[in-house]
């Protein structure tokens, strides 16, 4: 359990490559792994480390996020002392720069009693013992600790993520960059930063005085580059995926079908929490064929489901085939429809005999049905 730390979720994540899933929501509230949302993983990591003060700073498109997180009860964050604080902006005020979002809510930072902050994004899917990162941070004596993962497949898995250069002997950060997909090997920044709250406040003010229309990440590294702060690197050795594009989203879901990944993510001492929906159990009707699939409660399976991730309240009718697909919540796949490598967003009905086919690298996305 770690004391004196609060967590701040900075949800100014780049949505350019995952647009079709984020027209109605932020990346943080994109459904994933059949019954979770992206933010559940990092939020659970924070809670499982014993942090009880969590601020979530979101961009404007936050209806779905607010609906999901609510008062934070599923994460045990509905509290009188500390708990969950959700900050978001109305449609009128289009703010895309996290520095400004943070600055607008300085009062929260001042009021919180914690001396230290873990600043994090939501889209790195992992199950991490954050108390280990805190230990490493405090032992390092550095102003800031950055959590990173060493990837041997960075050109595919972590495109467009920030990278850092690390001195392997001292674990000090020596530089930064961006993964444009040229290198297989990279130290990918997981966008988790540990620092004193006072330092964060200083950085925000300093940045606001210069120019608020830029990312906090740039501001932090400006400070680092001009030698004002020291930066330690903490390597996380577990499974990580970054949900910043449709193909990364597809791969991450498919990863959940691997026993070693799902065991690490879901069956450790640190459970992943999410909102309860009170769905009935799932029923498998005579004649169904299911293999290598992750299926949420509330489904009725009469057809064939193979290598797929199925969300809550999905009905697969007789003769329908769902293969290599990601099916989100509340979807009907009617009789004899055939779906291969398709991502189907919420509330959609796929009519009888429809055939839809994407491919492994370019899955077809059927967007969420708007209830208008």
């Amino acid at each position, binding site marked *: 359990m770690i004391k004196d730390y609060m967590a701040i979720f900075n949800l100014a994540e780049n949505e350019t490559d995952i647009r079709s899933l984020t027209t109605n929501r932020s990346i943080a509230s994109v459904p994933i*792994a*059949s*019954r*979770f949302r992206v933010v559940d993983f990092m939020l659970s990591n924070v809670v499982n480390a014993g942090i009880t003060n969590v601020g979530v700073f979101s961009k404007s498109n936050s209806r779905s996020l607010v609906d999901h997180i609510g008062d934070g*009860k*599923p994460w045990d964050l509905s509290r009188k002392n500390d708990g969950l604080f959700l900050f978001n902006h109305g449609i009128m005020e289009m703010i895309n720069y996290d520095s400004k979002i943070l600055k607008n809510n300085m009062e929260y930072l001042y009021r919180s009693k914690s001396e230290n902050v873990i600043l994090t994004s939501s889209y790195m899917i992992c199950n991490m013992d954050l108390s280990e990162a805190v230990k490493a941070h405090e032992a390092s004596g550095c102003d800031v600790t950055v959590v990173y993962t060493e990837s041997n497949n960075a050109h595919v898995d972590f495109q467009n993520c920030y990278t850092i250069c690390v001195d392997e002997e001292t674990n000090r950060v020596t530089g930064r960059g961006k993964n444009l997909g040229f290198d297989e090997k990279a130290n990918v920044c997981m966008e988790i930063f540990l620092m004193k709250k006072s330092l964060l406040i200083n950085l925000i003010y300093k940045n606001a005085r210069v120019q608020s229309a830029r990312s906090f990440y740039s501001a932090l590294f400006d400070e680092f580059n001009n030698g004002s702060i020291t930066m330690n690197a903490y390597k996380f050795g577990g499974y990580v995926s970054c949900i910043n594009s449709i193909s990364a989203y597809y791969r991450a879901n498919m990863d959940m*079908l691997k*026993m070693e990944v*799902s065991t690490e*993510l*879901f*069956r450790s001492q640190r*459970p*992943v*929490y*999410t909102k*309860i929906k*009170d*769905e*009935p*159990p*799932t*029923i*498998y*009707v*005579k*004649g*169904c064929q*299911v*293999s*290598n*699939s*992750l*299926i*949420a*409660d*509330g489904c*009725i399976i009469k057809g064939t*489901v193979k290598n797929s*991730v*199925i969300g809550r*309240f999905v009905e697969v009718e007789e003769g329908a085939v769902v293969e290599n697909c990601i099916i989100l919540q509340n979807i009907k796949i009617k009789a004899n429809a055939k779906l291969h490598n398709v991502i189907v967003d919420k509330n959609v009905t796929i009519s009888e005999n429809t055939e839809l086919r994407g491919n492994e690298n370019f899955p077809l996305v059927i967007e969420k049905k708007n209830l208008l």
Partner: protein
Amino acid sequence: MAKKNMIAMILAGGQGSRLSPMTKVMCKPAVSFGGKYRIIDFALSNCSNSGIDTVGILTQFKPQALNSHIGIGSPWDLDRVHGGVAMLPPYMSEQGGDWYKGTANAVYQNLSFCDQYDPKYILILSGDHIYKMDYRKMLSRHIDSGADATIAVMQVPLEEASRFGIMNTDDEDVVVEFEEKPKHPKSTLASMGIYIFTYQKLREYLVKDAEDPNSNYDFGKNIIPAMLANNERLVAYRFEGYWKDVGTISSYWEANMDLLSVDNEVKLFDTSWKLYTDVAVRPSQYIGCEAKIENSIITEGCVVEGEVTNSILFPGCVVAKNARIVDSIIMEGTVIEDNVIVNKSIILENCVVKANNVIGNGDDIAVIEANSVVEPNYSGVN
């Protein structure tokens, strides 16, 4: 305190000895049912869906599991500013204290709880029945018919009628005679143990009943007959739909098996009348490459690599490769290892059935107690 139109009292003190060993560590209403529920979830969800926001739960026998399941009632939306759920065990007072001597006595001892809401009507329920019912319809019937008490009834087959309290009614469904478990039933309208009383009327009878040293202090045996004898207006409310009192291991098994169709009579998959429960968050169920599943109900957290037919798996069960589960109920957290055959069995919570085992002969229902480690040649089958 805000006045309530109707409050509910759920009788949840039942020992359920015929359900042993399921009731070895918990009372019957806390017994798991239907993949992810406990029996009391049906009555509680019915209350919640019927708009009843004040519920007292009368407990007596081994209440710990029930207490932790109910908590402050949030899964059923019963954590309320006014009202909500209250656990009501027997208690001591200046005049001493007593165990609940019967169903009526349990409510009698909590009249002060009821009084504080000054309810117009009171709904008396049993915590161990499986059914979905809109109590608002029953209340309308109670009000429209000008009844003092309304008793939910259902048609049962004549040969089973002598197991129930039987209502003999006139052509307006006013009860003219009540017989508890009659040898020669005159009708097939059985009481379901669900009553709505006009509260002040019930209060009078409960107080009178408590003064009678020869009473059984029971709704069916004493209160209803006393009201009938005094010509109070008792009305039958006919319920059509699924209702089951899971009293024995075999009726428990059957009631679970009744769920194994999409349009089952319980309407388990009808989400317009949701069932709520308190359940730990787990990942979705994983169905392995070689798994074969037929006509079964499976819930979150399960990992199935083997074969499951006509069975119910509760959260977090593991069925290893080459294992076969047939006509069985496997409860939360139980692990079935490689090469095991489970046939017509109920395996309770957190067991490990070791590899190369055979449980159940397909005739009698085999029951394995909670937390057992079942080696081959295990002798603890109930």
